């Protein structure tokens, strides 16, 4: 299969290992990875801030660059939700409505793609640690397909012990521009999440969304906590 990879802007810049891991997983499974380098950002910050015409300025070229893909895999539930769920809404009643729907139909969040499209559950990884999962809200509730896949994939990782936290499905408080517009609320929410994760005695918070992990790691580092965050793809390529 020819897989077009969408790497979110902040993953490109700050968390390249996530993308590199996904490339190696897909290639190991025998797929050809295509990466449209010109794509920078899905446009979510402008969209969530209410500036839809300005969002289209960013999203339209993205859409056009993705339209000929066989299948699109996104390394984030949040940007995945933007392309899959919100592009059709953003472009409704425009000449690109049809294209937005077509692109939406072939877009997958990474873990969902592995488990539900490819039927892969065991990647032969080994990761000796106790971990807990954070469900990113966009994957969990917008896409609605990403609750089980990360758990299925982690259950086959050797040496890994998964301990669920009470607040697994509670928002980490990031929310994009929300984290800067309402920093104290955002931080309070993040603190609740971190406390719940720490309670499990886990060494790592694993998630399929780097944006949530960026927020949580930012809090944990500032507070000098030992708990670390890691993207699912990196766990799956550990040996």
């Amino acid at each position: 299969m020819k897989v077009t990879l969408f790497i979110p802007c902040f993953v490109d810049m700050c968390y390249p290992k996530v993308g590199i891991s996904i490339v190696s997983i897909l290639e190991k499974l025998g797929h050809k990875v295509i990466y449209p380098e010109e794509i920078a950002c899905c446009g979510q910050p402008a969209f969530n801030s209410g500036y839809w015409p300005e969002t289209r300025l960013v999203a339209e070229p993205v859409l056009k660059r993705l339209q000929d893909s066989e299948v699109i895999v996104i390394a984030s539930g949040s940007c995945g939700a933007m392309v899959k769920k919100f592009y059709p809404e953003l472009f409704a009643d425009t000449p690109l409505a049809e294209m937005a729907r077509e692109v939406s139909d072939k877009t997958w969040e990474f873990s969902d793609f592995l488990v539900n499209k490819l039927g892969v559950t065991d990647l032969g990884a080994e990761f000796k640690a106790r971990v807990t999962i954070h469900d990113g809200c966009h994957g969990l509730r917008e896409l609605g397909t990403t609750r089980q896949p990360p758990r299925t994939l982690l259950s086959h990782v050797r040496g890994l012990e998964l301990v669920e936290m009470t607040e697994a499905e509670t928002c980490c408080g990031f929310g994009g521009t929300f984290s800067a517009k309402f920093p104290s609320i955002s931080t309070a929410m993040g603190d609740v999440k971190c406390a719940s994760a720490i309670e499990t005695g886990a060494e790592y918070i694993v998630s399929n969304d780097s944006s949530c992990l960026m927020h949580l790691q930012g809090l944990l580092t500032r507070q000098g906590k030992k708990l670390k965050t890691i993207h699912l793809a990196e766990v799956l390529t550990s040996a």
Partner: protein
Amino acid sequence: MNTSASQFTKDAERITRDLRHRELIQTALSKYVVARDAKKSRFQDWEEARQTAAGIKWDAINHLDKHLVEFAKNLEARGGKVHWAGNGEHAREIIIKIIADREAHSIIKSKVMTGEEIHLNEALEKAGYSVVESDLGEYIVQLRHEAPYHFVFPAMHLTRGEISELFQKELGSEPTDSPEELTMIARRVLRSKYITADIGISGANFAIAETGMISITENEGNARLTCALPKVHIALMGIEKVLPRLDDLALFLPMLGTAGAGQMMTCYNTLYGGPRQIDESDGPEEFHVVLLDNHRTRLLADAEQRDALHCIRCGACLNVCPIYKNIGGHSYGTTYQGPVGCVITPHLRGLQDWKHLSFASSLCGACTQACPVKIDLHHHLLQSRRNARSQKPVWWEKTAFKMFSIVANSPFIWGMIKPFARLGQMFHPLIKATRLDPAIAWTRSRELPKVAPQTFKEYWRKRK
């Protein structure tokens, strides 16, 4: 920033710093989630029940004109009187006129959120009447001269100790830590009020078009006494409360109990169908229903967000909202707090004054998932943001997003970000978390991520 927005930010920040307060709310609401989930599992299929309820509400709201007229006709056939109030002022005038015509003095109220919405108590007191709230939570916040903290649990922010102190001060009671004793203290005061009250004012959870009755759900029995003992009963309700058929209650009553308080059914569910009939031995002599619009029709006209009128005021969205749990109910400054409040308040009270509520969300969608009548709550917040900004953009934000589109669409300029970010990162520690820091909103409490030595794009190019 307008006053309601700056007040919101100030109050929210204060509560986020108050760990004891947040702990209190979070503990209470985590108990709710456990109880609710246990009761949800007693439904044969909760998702199917939600779907059905949403369908019934869709019919009710989309044919509101027909159902309201049917409700009024059926109620008036039994001697009830229906009043149509366009706005809060109109509703207050109607109610005060009914009271004045009876030459009444004292009023007992059971819980009525539309009363909070139109500031009914203040108007009644200004007109010289004494008003007592009979719902225990409402009674407590009335004694404290504050607004309900949660539209289902008005006094959930208070501990037993705080309530005991309040009763000692206001009612002269002995100190106690027992919830039963505290309830008895309030009950002794309230029982005498029911007997002496001339007027009972209630809300309504549902209005049944088919039979012309209102349905009230409660746990304390106070609404029954409020509606049955005084000679006049006035029910104030929003026009969106109407359901087409009596049978619909078979779904909505258990759903309200489950989603609202984690109860299989609320303790008392009563239908009120008019004043005392000739062959009846008790009940009020007069029965009035005031149907309140107060900009609900403005929401009805918005096809995109109309489903917000499906709301049965169960409070489930507040109970699961991570924002509500961390900023508390009073921070909103609205009658209806939490996600549904953030959705409807801009419609009821003006988008530009209340748009900050739609921005004060991480859009996590927990509310939408919890809503028993499937209101698309968090997407409505997104739509309100869009509506607010297309009406009145913030010039610098608009410019910034336009500039961003130029940067994002040019691989060359985009490629320049990395060296700049690296350079910035080198000098950032000098100003980190100070007033000079452009990222202060983030760095006050969090570390920024580091730009990687090799970006993904660089890795990809090298590989090729």
